């Protein structure tokens, strides 16, 4: 066996001799270590000790080691084991044994040659003759070869399992000197051949058997068929159907249906956004190509288009592989278009191929040139043919088609690199088309299509915003275009919130900066221009206005607030601007219902402009409005008659920039318009701020104005209605409130003087130190334990030695005593004999 015999210690022996349970049950052997506390979940190894056992173990160990050493002390000669590989630790014990055995055999063999006196002594292993086993080894050897073929017989495996690793090793050892044993090798060869033959035979047998069974089954089938016809005929069909019919119940039918129902077909893979974008672009490109083709329509030789693309093989010699050159398969008027050309083309292609094959070594340029020449020729021919081939299409139709193609927008656009690019792109298009252009630009430059597109689109967003501002500054402002561009702006903004935010911020920052400068010089501001108003509106469309703090809308609202506090109202135009700003302000706070004091101030000031009698006011106006002055009667209606002819309609936004009012009637109408807008805003504010605690104080000036100074009777009905509604709302809001009370908060606990008690959760562990310290502590502890243990061992050793020495001395002494006694005894007998002799002599 290959296993290393385990060193049996004495303790084991003890245990073996007396079974462990016997020892453990013997109360004299067992020492129980008493535990102070019973701790749950802790497994203790040392609750029961066997002192006797362990002591004897220790003594025996000492006897083996220390005692030997002691006995050897002072002795110079020693035994050296000269056996092969005795001190070689690298060798496995199996190998050692094997080698030794081999050497022994060799020696014996040599000896045999020398003095071949007696028969080969038989070696055995596990009681079996080794010579016999060698036979199997040979088989094992053949096994090595047969492994390639994957053949394994029962015998082989059996011998293999019996042999183990040792045997195999042996065979390899034999293999080296295996050449000499002729008959043995032969037998091995035979064995192999036999084996192969056997397996082949088996295979053949199996094959034959299979064929036979196949034949039999076929035969059986055939027989069955002949019988089957007879069986079917036995039962009439109609009967059977009748029998079966009533069985079909609804349930069964449903089950059938369900069984045969079409299983869910695997649908097509969902497209990723990139794929979708690519498809979109491809679609656009296709449309674009189509459009181009139609636009070209006929003879126009295209030279400018598609020249941008340069292939890697391009020689830059002006040759372009035109799209129209390669005639694609197409149908026209139900028949195959340009058959001939394709054929010709094919021929050419073949010819070319052949050529290229033939002259592979020719310079590329040469072929190219030739190709080009041929193509040119071909094209000319094609053109001629084409013109002649399409007589059905009249010239008028062709022209109309061309026109339509021209009017139609291209489907792909390159992203503009600057504002002027964008302007060029959009110039001269209708608002709807401008929107389309922007949308298509955006689609054909989708961020997932190319690396730089993201940046391009971000730029586009910036330019668009600038463009919007510019549109608003034109006279007359092109607001419809802006209106159309809004959805595009929105989608772009959704794509690039950062860029949109940054652009808007820079616009607002610049506007804020310039107003700051003007304010420092003049002390007041002009009303913002239309572009700024549009920007503010766009901001509200793109960004949420209800956020508590938003990087764009908060400054925007501040800008509005500054405008309506610092811009003096000097004309009806200013009034309109102010009202637009107020509308925006109301929109900004409509959702969040935040309080905007400037808005109320401004609206009150507006209403003040409509007050005729400016004496004994019950309210105080806030700048930019003044109690009285040259522009404080702007909204006073000059002729009460004009009220009758007035009807409400929307004011154009451009009225903030220029207002053309020809006569007093127009002016009065405009005033009424402003007044009604103003009142509507006031109404909205009332509803927004109804919940404010100081509602009454906030709306006090407006209430005074409406109730005392502006009488509703003088105005048209819609205004009267508004007037009444506002007053009602204001008076309906409760005036009383409970007093302010601070929020109740948890009382601060008093300072306590009792000691702080910390719960200890992990007993026995050192706390309050760092990891390093703990580690150090642990090592120290371990060292101490080891040290103590070592001391104890040394003491035990010396005690053992002393005991041995004492034993020795005692033995020696007792021996001596014995000898002395013996001597004395012999002497005494001698003496006795002598005395007896003497006595006898005396006698």
């Amino acid at each position, binding site marked *: 066996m290959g296993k290393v015999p385990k060193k049996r210690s004495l303790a084991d022996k003890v245990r073996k001799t007396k079974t462990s349970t016997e020892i453990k049950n013997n109360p004299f052997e067992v020492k129980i270590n008493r535990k102070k506390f019973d701790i749950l979940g802790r497994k203790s190894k040392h609750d029961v000790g066997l002192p006797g056992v362990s002591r004897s173990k220790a003594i025996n160990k000492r006897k083996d080691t220390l005692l030997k050493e002691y006995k050897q002390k002072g002795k110079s000669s020693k035994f050296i084991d000269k056996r092969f590989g005795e001190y070689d630790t690298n060798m496995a014990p199996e190998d050692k044994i094997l080698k030794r055995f081999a050497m022994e055999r060799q020696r014996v063999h040599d000896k045999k040659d020398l003095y071949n006196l007696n028969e080969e002594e038989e070696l055995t292993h596990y009681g079996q003759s080794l010579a016999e086993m060698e036979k199997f080894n040979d088989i094992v050897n053949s096994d090595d070869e047969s492994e390639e073929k994957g053949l394994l017989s029962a015998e082989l495996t059996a011998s293999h399992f019996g042999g183990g690793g040792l045997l195999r090793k042996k065979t390899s050892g034999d293999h080296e000197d295996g050449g000499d044993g002729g008959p043995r090798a032969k037998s091995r060869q035979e064995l192999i051949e036999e084996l192969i033959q056997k397996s082949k035979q088996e295979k053949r047998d199996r094959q034959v058997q299979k064929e036979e069974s196949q034949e039999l089954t076929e035969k059986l089938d055939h027989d069955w068929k002949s019988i089957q016809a007879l069986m079917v005929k036995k039962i009439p069909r109609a009967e059977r159907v009748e029998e079966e019919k009533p069985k079909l119940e609804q349930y069964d039918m449903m089950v059938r249906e369900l069984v045969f129902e079409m299983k869910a077909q695997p649908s097509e893979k969902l497209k990723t956004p990139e794929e979708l974008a690519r498809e979109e672009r491809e679609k656009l490109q296709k449309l674009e190509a189509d459009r181009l083709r139609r636009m070209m329509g006929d003879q126009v030789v295209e030279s400018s288009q598609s020249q941008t693309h340069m292939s890697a093989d391009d020689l830059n010699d002006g040759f372009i592989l035109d799209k129209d050159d390669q005639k694609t398969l197409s149908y026209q008027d139900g028949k195959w278009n340009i058959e001939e050309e394709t054929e010709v083309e094919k021929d050419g292609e073949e010819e070319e191929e052949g050529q290229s094959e033939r002259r592979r070594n020719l310079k590329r340029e040469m072929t190219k040139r030739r190709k080009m020449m041929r193509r040119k020729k071909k094209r000319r021919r094609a053109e001629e043919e084409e013109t002649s081939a399409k007589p059905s299409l009249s010239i008028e139709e062709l022209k109309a088609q061309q026109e339509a193609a021209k009017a139609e927008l291209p489907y792909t656009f390159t992203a503009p690199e600057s504002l002027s690019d964008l302007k060029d792109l959009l110039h001269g298009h209708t608002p709807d088309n401008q929107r389309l252009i922007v949308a298509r630009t955006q689609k054909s430059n989708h961020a997932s299509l190319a690396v730089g597109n993201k940046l391009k689109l971000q730029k586009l967003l910036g330019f668009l915003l600038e463009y919007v501002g510019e549109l608003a500054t034109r006279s*007359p*402002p092109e*607001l419809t275009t*802006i*209106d159309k561009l*809004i959805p595009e*702006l*929105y989608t772009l903004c*959704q794509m690039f*919130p*950062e860029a949109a*935010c940054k652009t808007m*911020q820079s616009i*607002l*920052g610049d506007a*804020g900066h310039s107003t700051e400068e003007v*304010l420092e010089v003049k002390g007041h501001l002009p009303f913002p221009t239309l572009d700024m108003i549009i920007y503010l*509106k766009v901001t509200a*469309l*793109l*960004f*949420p206005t209800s956020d*508590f703090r*938003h*990087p*764009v809308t908060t*400054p925007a*609202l*501040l*800008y509005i*607030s500054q405008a309506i*506090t610092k811009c003096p109202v000097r004309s009806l135009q200013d009034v309109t601007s102010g*009202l*637009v700003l107020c*509308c925006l302000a109301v929109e*900004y*706070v*409509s*959702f*969040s219902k935040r*309080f905007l*004091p*400037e808005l109320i*101030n401004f609206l009150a000031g507006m209403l003040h402009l409509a007050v005729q009698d400016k004496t004994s006011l019950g309210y*105080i*106006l806030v700048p930019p409005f003044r109690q009285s002055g040259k522009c404080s009667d702007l909204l006073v209606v000059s002729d009460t008659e004009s009220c009758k002819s007035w009807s409400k309609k*929307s*004011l*154009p936004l451009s009225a903030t920039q220029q207002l053309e009012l020809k006569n007093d009637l127009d002016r009065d109408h405009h005033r009424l318009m402003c007044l009604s807008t103003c009142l509507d805003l006031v109404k909205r504010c009332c509803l927004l701020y109804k919940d404010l*605690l*100081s509602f009454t*104080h906030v709306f006090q000036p407006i209430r005074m104005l409406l109730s005392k100074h502006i009488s509703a009777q003088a105005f048209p009905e819609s205004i009267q209605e508004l007037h009444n509604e506002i007053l009602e709302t204001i008076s309906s809001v409760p005036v*009383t*409130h*409970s*007093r*302010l*009370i*601070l*929020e109740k908060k948890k009382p601060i606990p008093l300072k306590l003087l009792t000691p702080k008690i910390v719960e200890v959760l992990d007993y026995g562990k050192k706390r309050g130190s760092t990891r390093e310290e703990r580690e150090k502590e642990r090592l120290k502890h371990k060292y101490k334990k080891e040290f103590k243990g070592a001391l104890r061992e040394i003491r035990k050793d010396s005690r053992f030695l002393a005991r041995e020495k004492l034993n020795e001395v005692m033995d020696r002494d007792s021996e001596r005593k014995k000898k002395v006694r013996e001597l004395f005894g012999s002497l005494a007998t001698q003496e006795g004999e002598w005395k007896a002799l003497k006595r006898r002599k005396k006698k």
Partner: protein
Amino acid sequence: MAPAKRCNVSLAATAEKSVKKAKIDINAQVERILESRKNANDVFDILEALESEKEKDVVSAANACSKLFCTLLEKKELFLGKLPGEEEAVSGECSAEEKYQMFMRHRYNSCVELLLEHLSHDLHGVKESALCCLMKFAAGEGKYPLEDLDWTEHYSFPRELLQAVVDRLLSKTTDNSMLISRFQEFLEMEDVRYYVMSSIRENVGKVMDKNKGALVPIYQNNVFTLMSNISIPSQESELTNFMVKQEAKHEDWKAAKLNEHKRVFERMWLGFLKYKLPSNMYKKILVILHDSILPHMSKPTLMIDFLTAAYEVGGAISLLALNGLFVLIHQHNLDYPDFYKNLYNLLEPSVFHVKYRARFFHLANLFLSSSHLPVYLVAAFAKRLARLALTAPPTALLIVLPFVYNLIRRHPSCRVLLHKPSTEGELLEDPYLMDEEDPVKCRALESSLWEIKTLQKHYHPDVAKAALAINTPLSGKEDDINEVLEITTHELMERDLKKSQIKNIPLEFEIATQLLKGGGDVLGQHFCLD
């Protein structure tokens, strides 16, 4: 003197390049006149050039004149003492030497007259060179007086010349602020300043009496510009820079005494403020009053009348008068009975919108920092400010809110404005009377600061946050309002614009389709695209 010279040199240099020829001529003439008395008549040519139309000619002529007559003054070749008439001088029986001197003196006088006329010339260059030239003459005259100094007590100073210059500077028709700022460098000299101040006083008295106290805006503006340029050193030892050094008893000279300076300064200002002023002039004076006028007056209390009058005018002027009053109250023991009441009445919605808002709140903070104020007064202020805050722009609110909090912190008994637990649940109308002028009767203490609670819903995040502070007990430390006093709307905007490091910018989720849609359609309801 030195700067004047440098200036002349530079002027001469510019003139040199442009009109070399004329310059050479005039300079040569000066040389000739100075060389021998035979050529004395050439002086007429120079004077003629001085009357020329061309700016460059005049400038070079003025330079020549200054050179010529300063040399003559130095050589004492101008007639001293009382000058007889031209005819007399010629016919009189005196030596040729004296006759020459008289002749030159006459030329000098006419030159001075010409230059004085030039001071009200249209062109600034002419004015400036004339002014420089005149001041050179003044320096020369100071050194070598043209009067007979028989007795030593008399201090020589060209008072008449200076008076004439000042009269011209304080023009009634043209705004001379440029020239006056040029003149400022001469005001650095102690004696010049002293005499200029007394000349101004005389001039103002004369002119205003003539106009019977009516407004003369341009003139008053000139006077103000000149006077505001005058600053007096704070210590006598600093009086060192003199144009004329008196040989004897220099220390006794009035122009060398700081007290005299202060007295003249005070009289000058009082003389000016005595008359009715345009309202923007009031503002201008009040702006500089506390730090450039009051400290230099010998008796600042004399300003009380002016300040109280201004304080009672109301509006921005009152706000500005506060500063001066504060100095008087603080340093000069002024007892102003209804000061706080007036201050209380100054609180109006416009306070938050005027230019001097920062200054006002700084002072109001100072006035209300006393811990000896009665509680009702502090409560009245707090309540009124809170009420006014309902109309204030966000920049003002950022001042007002901490201001009110500071008031309550200083006077813990005002805490009832924020916290009155005994009457919990009881509903009442605001008892505070906004229109009551007397803080005693306004019943502010019975009220609560609901306004601040309202401002918690303010649209600006910073304001809303500041207003939220009343929900919990105020912290012990006062807020420093000086940081926010000067804040502008633009700065407030920048706060948000600069703070763009936010990772993901929230976007409007409602898809925008049209310009006028969205946000409740307020704009769309009243306005259309075209």
